[in-house]
């Protein structure tokens, strides 16, 4: 999937991946896509809730071993 910006949140724990993602999204323009890499297992549910609440669309969630990959489209 194409993306405009990438955020490496590997090794970070709650709530840092969400806070960093929020910051990254704030610097992007509407329609742009952010790719996030994380290792926090809680981030799967957290990013879904974050997207639902903020209106930024969670395009996909993927799991590879102990790593998680999220694509979020900025509102």
């Amino acid at each position, binding site marked *: 999937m194409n993306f405009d910006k990438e955020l490496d949140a590997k*090794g*970070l*724990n*709650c*709530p*840092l991946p*969400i*806070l960093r*993602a*929020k910051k990254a999204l704030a610097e992007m323009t509407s329609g742009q896509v952010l790719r996030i890499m994380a*290792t*926090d297992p809680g981030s799967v549910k957290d990013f879904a809730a*974050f997207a639902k*609440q*903020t209106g930024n669309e969670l395009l996909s969630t993927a799991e590879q071993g102990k790593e998680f990959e999220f694509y979020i489209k900025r509102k």
Partner: protein
Amino acid sequence: MNMPTDQAALDALIRQRLDEILPQKLEELKASKTPSMSIIATKGTLDWAYPPFILGSTAAALGWDVQIFFTFYGLNLLKKDVGDLKVSPLGNPGMPMKMPFGPDWFKGIDWNKFLMPNLIQSNLPGFESVATMLMKQTIKNNGVATIDELRSLSKEADVKFIACQMTVELFGFSHDDFIEGIDYAGAATFLPVAQQSDVCLFM
């Protein structure tokens, strides 16, 4: 003209239209309202420093309006240097004491369980400092943010910090002891905002 019948028909029509329109209207109103949260932070130890800043910064990231009212020992969380916040297993049987280094079997031992009774721990000089050091290392190893980091992120995200002026004086603090950008106020300032908050928490 039969008034009562017209009236009844009109009422029925209004009721029917309301049933159709109201749910969506309420949904729209709910969606357009910015959620809000008020927290009272009363504890001044390293472990209790986390909940207000984690929830405050996260709520702000979700787009909520957040205010945190710091009172009594919670004022410690507003000091310029939060590096000296401590945690103690003393009187806290729920806190495991684990080593943040060494092989996994070693890290898995909960020393608090069999090392020594709580009463004796309290008499050991520097025990609290050791426990604090171990927890800080564990926090670092697990990629958990420091209090200073979470506090800065909260501040950046416009979380409102209010220090209880009464306890500032009670404990002999001065405003110079605390970070910039804090409001100093009392219960009468907190309550009206808390009243309007969707989430209100005491910590």
